[in-house]
């Protein structure tokens, strides 16, 4: 039986991410066919801030998705035994794509673009004399003849990859303009002029500029990271850039899956309380007021610690470390979701209270519609803009919450790479002299960029979906 060179591994969070991806794709297709749903999104992508933040977010999502396709590779068995053996380590597509980063592990700390280690070591040199020196790195700048060439080498790499990026950018721009010219039946030159002076219907100029920036960054970093540790290495010599990239998936999972847990609770409870009133309303209100008065961190800490005990007692349930860490991540999402649905629920309840008295609901009742069909046809669609706004706003908060929780020690599994864990380990690094600054800075920068993009996006989305803001635009 010819067997595959790998077996796919479906982690729980992977499955949920695929599910989410499916839901998003379906909604996009659905929205495309409904003019009133499409209109606010058109407003979003007409704003410069909107397209910029979408493009940044897309980069993150792309990396996150690559990192969500998991498998275990076969071990190259020399003996050709009957049974296939697979590595115990779970690998993702991202790992394969950035294999050098993953495998070029140094001994310990090294600064960005360094060629020598950060700490001194006793070493025997050629004449077997012991000396206390900064040893040369195994990979960082190892291809250089002499360390003096470093600057020149970096510069030439930058120039070459920038040229490559530029060519790619020009090609892509030409393709885009060509496509647009066909679509709007313009001449090629007119379309080019429209974009250049910014009079096109959508901010294509911004899109192209942003595309250029992204291409430049990606090409340069990719080229440089082959020979150097662009963001340095950490305590065990692992590349910080690799860690930062791997952290993206953790952050996205926390930010999105939590809402997946939270939304059904918030929507069903909020609508039920607002629409049915009476004792249902009382019960739901009591539940969320009670839940709200328990400090969230306490609840999360308790739940995570309990889970940890369970996992320690039942190691047989988890084949690999990754699966174990993933379980904890999922659980964290659930706990965060359970503690954070109350805010949205409260808003939805209030809005439903208002909507149930609206005349179209009354008219529908007079026509003999059942409660279920009123909820489904009239109430829910008119709440979706609030859900949309709050999901986007919550996202950045959740990404930051992960960092804080991991720092406190009740976040994701210590074996899982995340920004929170990177910051946590930076506690010791900051105490060193000279300071090891790059790990913290990298985590901070990656997180900052994501949260900033998400916040800008949320801002634009709120402007577009808020019925009050809308009227001003008309």
């Amino acid at each position, binding site marked *: 039986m010819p067997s595959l060179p790998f077996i796919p591994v479906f982690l729980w969070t992977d499955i949920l991410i695929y599910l989410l991806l499916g839901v998003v794709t379906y909604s996009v297709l659905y929205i495309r066919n409904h*003019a*009133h*749903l499409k209109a606010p999104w058109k407003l979003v992508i007409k704003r410069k801030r909107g397209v910029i933040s979408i493009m940044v977010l897309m980069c993150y999502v792309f990396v996150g998705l690559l990192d969500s396709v998991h498998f275990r590779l076969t071990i190259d068995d020399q003996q050709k035994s009957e049974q296939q053996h697979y590595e115990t380590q779970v690998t993702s597509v991202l790992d394969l794509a950035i294999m050098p980063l993953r495998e070029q592990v140094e001994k310990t700390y090294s600064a960005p673009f360094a060629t020598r280690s950060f700490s001194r070591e006793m070493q025997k040199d050629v004449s077997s004399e012991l000396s206390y020196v900064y040893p040369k790195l195994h990979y960082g700048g190892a291809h250089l003849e002499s360390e003096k060439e470093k600057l020149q080498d970096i510069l030439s790499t930058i120039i070459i990859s920038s040229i490559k990026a530029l060519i790619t950018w020009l090609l892509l721009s030409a393709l885009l303009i060509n496509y647009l010219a066909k679509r709007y039946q313009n001449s090629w030159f007119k379309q080019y002029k429209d974009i250049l002076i910014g009079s096109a219907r959508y901010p294509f100029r911004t899109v192209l500029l942003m595309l250029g920036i992204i291409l430049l960054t990606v090409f340069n970093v990719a080229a440089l990271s082959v020979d150097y540790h662009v963001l340095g290495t950490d305590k065990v010599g692992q590349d910080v850039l690799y860690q930062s990239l791997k952290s993206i998936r953790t952050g996205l999972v926390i930010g999105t899956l939590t809402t997946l847990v939270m939304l059904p609770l918030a929507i069903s409870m909020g609508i039920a309380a607002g629409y049915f009133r009476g004792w249902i309303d009382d019960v739901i209100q009591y539940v969320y007021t009670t839940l709200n008065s328990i400090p969230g961190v306490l609840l999360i800490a308790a739940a995570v610690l309990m889970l940890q005990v369970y996992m320690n007692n039942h190691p047989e349930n988890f084949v690999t470390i990754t699966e174990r860490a993933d379980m904890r991540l999922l659980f964290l999402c659930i706990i965060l979701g359970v503690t954070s649905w109350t805010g949205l629920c409260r808003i939805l309840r209030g809005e439903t209270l208002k909507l149930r008295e*609206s*005349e*179209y609901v*009354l*008219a*529908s*009742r*007079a*026509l*003999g*519609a*059942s409660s279920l*069909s009123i909820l489904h*046809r*009239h109430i829910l*669609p*008119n709440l979706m803009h609030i859900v949309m706004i709050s999901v986007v706003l919550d996202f950045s908060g959740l990404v930051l919450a992960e960092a804080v929780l991991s720092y406190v020690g009740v976040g994701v599994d210590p074996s899982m790479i995340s920004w929170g864990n990177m910051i946590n380990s930076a506690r010791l690094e900051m105490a060193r002299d000279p300071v090891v600054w790059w790990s913290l800075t990298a985590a901070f920068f990656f997180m900052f960029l994501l949260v900033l993009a998400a916040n800008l996006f949320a801002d634009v989305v709120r402007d577009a979906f808020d019925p009050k803001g809308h009227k*001003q635009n008309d």
Partner: protein
Amino acid sequence: MTELLKVTGLSTHIGSEKKPLKPVDNVSFCIEKGKTFALLGESGCGKSLTALSLLRLNPQPVSRVVAGAVELAGEDLLALSESDMEHIRGRRIAMIFQEPQSSLNPVLTVGQQIGESLQWHFKMRGKALHNRIINLLSSVGIPDPHQRFKDYPHQLSGGMKQRIMIAIALAGEPELLIADEPTTALDVTIQAQILDLLKEIQRETQMAILLISHDLAVVAQMADDVAVMYAGQIVEIAPREQFFKQVKHPYSKKLFESLPTAQKRQHRLTVIKGNVPALDKVFNGCRFVERCEFALPHCSTVVPGWHKDDEQSVRCHLLEPGQNSIVKVNSQKLMASLFKEISVTEKPVLILDKLRVHFPIRKGLFQRIVGHVKAVDDVSLVLRPSETLALVGESGCGKTTVGKAILQLVPITDGSVKYKEIVLNELSAKQLKLGRKGLQIVFQDPYSSMNPRMTISQVIEEAMISGMDSNNAVMRAEKVNSLMERVGLDAKQKHRYPHEFSGGQRQRICIARALAAEPNVIICDEPTSALDVSVQAQILNLLRELQKELKLTYLFITHNIAVVDYLAHSVAVMYLGRIVEQGLREEVLQSPQHPYTQALLGAVPQLDNNKSKQVIRLEGELPSPATPPKGCHFHQRCPKVMPQCLENYPEQTQITDSHQVRCFLY
């Protein structure tokens, strides 16, 4: 005559520089001292923005005054600095708005809000300030000013709030008061009080008033000079007498013709075809040309100039010398399309018997019931097939609740609603679905009565899906098409969303939705009160056509007496949850018996106020239905109150076979 305010060539634009909307385009008029100047026009024609531009209060930065001059006693307001303007606004020109609810600050007391203006303009402090505020409060007719001084706006009723707004405006002792639809949000009896108050103040202080209104009757009562605005321009200016004697511009003429009155009962109301043109285009000719029946060939190519005749100026080509078409205008007075009076059969279709709807007032931790709002209290009505019964009353008297109670949209406390021998309030939820299919409702606000996220065809189809009578999609689509055409809409537009339609079109869609359930009875809850007169005429025509064609019965809930006079067969007058008088239209409207009916009819402003009959002006306002007064509910405001009125509620008295009244006078 001394000119107080002179506006010349005022233009205000909204939006981008390249393609602006021009809601105020080259508007000129002048207001004399101590006179009332009325700006008349339908919604969206730029009246309010004109007024705001005078004070430079037009919304910034979306709009800007681009041309013109506003001279207040010779001083150009548009040239003043912002800090100089602060001493004009409130001091020399004051303004009151349509919605007293939202123009008072809810967290400040009434006294503080009036004092604000006095402190700023006159630097008044302490005792003097306090005395002046009390003074102002009593001058606008607020009883017990010392007490009201400390009240917050929510403790006052709508009419009181408007009085407070007037007091604030008067605080600066202005030379000009701009009143932007000051009574539109108020009931007729309160409207009459406020209009009287404004007139009285004007007599005392010689203040000029710029009155903005869409209501011809209000203008007829108040104004000395009238200007009609259309699509951002003034099309006709005339002194009141002349204006109401003979309007000259075709648009003004149409406005008069589309007013419903008893005399037009046999006729279709005149409607103005088409819509107000978009204000962002460049007009090459007359703005009204597309909707004008008398348009001449050059109307669409040459911008009409002013034609002065006596003191009446009209912007119309028809009045050019050599055009004797003005005669034509007069001869084509009413488009004759007769309505047959519908004969009402005897067997009732809907009977309300001693209907009561009480809403519990809950208080405290355990939500104990501490009282009831008696929204509807012992109402009995009978509707016969093909009849229009008008339910008339002030806001808050419970007429809308009656409508909802008939459809079982609010829980009924006592009594019964009997539709075709079935008592609706005894049915289970499942039976009710079928039981009330023959009853439908059309709401007041066409903007909020449709789900903004459903297409028109979905809106109309909803009735068929929930009725489950035709599961065939093709049949449903055909029915939607025929319904849309029936109510006068293009069936091709059925895949659009509600926001793409105008108010009148939306109300048509709401009617189509009600018709989809194939009802016998339609409850019309103020279906035209949110619409302009010309659009109201279209809807009223449609309702009458449908009644004739489908033998519909209407329960027409309204406060507009003119509409009742035009449409109704019988009338019931409601006061504080009870019906005080009911009977045939002629009986109730021509010879009202109950003092409340008399007062209500007397308060309705009339177009020809020459025959100034002695009318009863009601004092005070509707009491709270949570604590209705003992005895006759009306005794606190009744001019003919007798001792027994304070003790007992009067029994029903038959005046004629069809005319009943509840009053001790009979």
